[in-house]
């Protein structure tokens, strides 16, 4: 499983983002998106195209954790959302790895070495809880991840020098998010 996590301000300014891969089932924590060359751009595009749905969900579900809100089939990407009460949006895009059978089909798309590694990770991680983005186990794991990031986010926002909408640059914050990803996803 590959993940792209982003925090957007209430007016959709990106405040923080990070890509990582699963650490479950022997995963090495490195993101391997299906189309590595365009992943960064595609991930942001997919996340932004889910914002309308998020805004609707925001006013029907009062929870902070809104779970899986959107799917983008062309990239097999799943979006899970968490809303802080002060309006920041945490969005997690997950992309399950290629199934072993599909590795050969898509091998023409990227460099062979990259896909070769992806293929081997796939076999290891397909049995992990995170392999199915909409399973209850995954929703629960993501909840824990989001809660942990929320805690660090509140600590950031409590500082008098942090103003809403400012990019979060603290390396410690990044470390915390990485650790939460490693622990839960």
């Amino acid at each position, binding site marked *: 499983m590959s993940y792209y996590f982003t925090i957007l301000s209430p007016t959709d300014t990106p405040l923080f983002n990070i890509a990582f891969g699963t650490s479950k089932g022997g995963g090495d924590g490195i993101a391997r998106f299906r189309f590595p060359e365009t992943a960064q751009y595609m991930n942001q595009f997919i996340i932004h195209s889910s914002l309308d749905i998020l805004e609707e969900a925001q006013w029907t579900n009062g929870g902070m954790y809104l779970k899986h809100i959107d799917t983008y089939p062309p990239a097999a990407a799943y979006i899970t959302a968490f809303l802080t009460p002060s309006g920041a949006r945490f969005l997690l895009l997950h992309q399950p790895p290629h199934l072993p059978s599909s590795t050969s089909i898509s091998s023409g798309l990227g460099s062979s070495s990259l896909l070769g590694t992806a293929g081997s990770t796939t076999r290891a991680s397909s049995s992990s809880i995170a392999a199915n983005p909409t399973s209850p186990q995954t929703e629960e794991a993501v909840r824990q991840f989001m809660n942990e990031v929320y805690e660090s986010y509140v*600590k*950031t926002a*409590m*500082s*008098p*020098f*942090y103003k809403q909408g400012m990019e979060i*640059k*603290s390396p410690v914050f990044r470390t915390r998010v990485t650790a939460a990803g490693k622990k839960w996803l």
Partner: protein
Amino acid sequence: MSSTKTSRIGEEIWKTRVDKVNAELVTLTYGTIVAQLCQDYDSNYQDVNKQLDKMGYNIGMRLIEEFLAKSGVGRCANFRETADMIAKVGFKIFLNVTPTVTNWTSDNTQFSLIFEDNPLADFVELPDDGRAQDELWFSNILCGVLRGSLEMVSY
């Protein structure tokens, strides 16, 4: 006056004679003040430090009355006693902390106060602009408070 006795006085006043408020309201309000100054002075931290010192000085001149009224203590016999009084009664009743008095010079005219704990700075992460961490004295208002209040009792 013995040091332990001074501690007891501080504790006693804090427990029985001090009106209290939520500490976080104070912390967050102080943070707001410093952040506002940094904005107004365009992150010229020397000026911010000066302004904080000035504010502290104003506070110190009035705070000393409150201190004397609440504590009822008389004149200190020497500067060492004064230091003890500041740390164990003064800081105790206004900030609920007791800094350590240390680094005395041989002529007994200088000392340092070391804070294990500083409620003014809770939640604070200094701006990451490569200067603030060296140049901004976030709690400089305390220096001003000491200056103001000590001046009123003619130090």
